[in-house]
């Protein structure tokens, strides 16, 4: 049927123009490109196979929401983030930084990642949306369908926990302060 053919063409161009973008958005949250690709593909397949698809006015918005949701669920339900990070966190000195500074940074990064990992799921989702999707309180509230107050509480909670981690390596922090203000 030509109608169906046209629909498939439209769908293909939707896929081609959004796939890469969505993968990189998902990857920021999952920290795992393979997982990100898998879940973006899954979202696309479900979108086509969903009989309601013709009633969705803004497919991009739908796909984005679905992908981010999937990525959040993947990340908060999996305890894989840590090991993946450990792999990525291999020592790689950057130009302009002392080796000591880099090593401390790597250590801190690992600690912070562990703490994020340990956050309760909703709290973790709020933080991930704020950090990687740069969403405001209001946007996060809408996205997760919770009240802005709850979002605020979660952010405060996350910050308090992560601050403790930062303070626990006070000396490092001090050095960094020193480094930044010198």
């Amino acid at each position, binding site marked *: 049927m030509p109608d169906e053919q046209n629909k498939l063409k439209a769908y293909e161009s939707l896929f081609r123009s959004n796939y890469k973008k969505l993968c*990189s958005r998902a990857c920021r949250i999952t920290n795992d490109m393979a997982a990100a690709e898998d879940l973006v593909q899954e979202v696309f397949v479900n979108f086509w*196979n969903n009989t309601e698809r013709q009633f969705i006015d803004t497919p991009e918005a739908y796909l984005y929401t679905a992908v981010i949701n999937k990525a959040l669920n993947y990340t908060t339900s999996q305890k894989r983030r840590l090991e993946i990070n450990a792999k990525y966190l291999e020592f790689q000195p950057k130009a302009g930084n002392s080796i000591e500074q880099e090593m401390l940074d790597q250590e801190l990064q690992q600690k*912070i990642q562990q703490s994020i990992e340990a956050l309760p799921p909703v709290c973790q989702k709020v933080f991930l949306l704020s950090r990687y999707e*740069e969403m405001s309180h209001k946007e996060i509230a809408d996205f997760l369908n919770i009240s802005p107050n709850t979002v605020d509480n979660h952010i*405060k909670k996350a910050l308090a926990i992560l601050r403790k981690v930062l303070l626990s390596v006070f000396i490092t922090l001090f050095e960094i302060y020193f480094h930044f203000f010198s």
Partner: protein
Amino acid sequence: MEGKYWDIVTRQLAGKASASELQKLEDWLAESPEHKADYQAQKRLWQLTPPSEIADTDVEAAWKKVKSQLVDKQPAKVISIYQNVWRVAASIILLIGVLWLAKYFLFPHFGMEVVESGNRRIAVVLPDNSQVWLNKGSKLIYDKDFDRNERNVQLEGEAFFEVKRDVERPFIIHSNEAQTKVLGTSFNLRAYPDEPLVELAVATGKVAFSLKEQKKEVIVTPGFAVQLNTLSNELRKEEIPGENAWAWKTGKLQFANEELKNILPVLERYYDTEIELKNSALGTCRFTGTFQQADLEEVLQVLTATMQLKYIEQDKQGYSLTGQGCK
């Protein structure tokens, strides 16, 4: 930390803050050292959680993968699915038919208890506690759960029945061409499919014997036997002395002043052999005696000694008796 400023810092760190937002942030930071500490904490947190580097993606490969999983919704396909439904339905019906035929022809006694004696003699206890002794080469078929109204069994071969009395539920034996109906008795029924005669001999109680699909019944009482010739559909009732009809079960042959011509068929049946009289006058010789688990040779020796006869073994077919005859 106030949510509004967290959001502004987020935008500032992403390089997306507007000039007015940046001004607001500066003012807020100047307000107190605490605000500065909050700002530094968030900034530090951002620095320590960099987004992972984005690896390159193969859009072409991904598209192929996705395309293969798309469900085709073309109407033409829908029709073919229905066609398949019909095909599947037809196949199932055909399969059921074939299975039914297979069951009917290959396993006519499906779900029934089938007891075959083979080369032995065996005793069977039926669900109603009736006992059945099966002679060699016999087969008894019955439903594990007897019917509520009737106790039906099917017999091929020979069996001695001791039927538990149950006036409510008649016990019915179906055998070739004959039907034997009892309430509670003991009797011997011989109905080998390869023999033209069906024979019923009653030990105790009363037995109703009838031809299949016929209303006519013959009531048989102890001491009597009835023979049905399945070729001619003739029924013959005769008096039988003793319990020799089910000697295969008891191992006991008993003759009380019996004529030799009546003794020989009993022996022939019991020992599955043939015994011939060279002189028909010998038939009237009478004999009284009991044999218990005796060999044929032993029986013949006793008979010939008592009646002054001679027996000759005729190859493997059987024996013949010769003599002068009795006075």
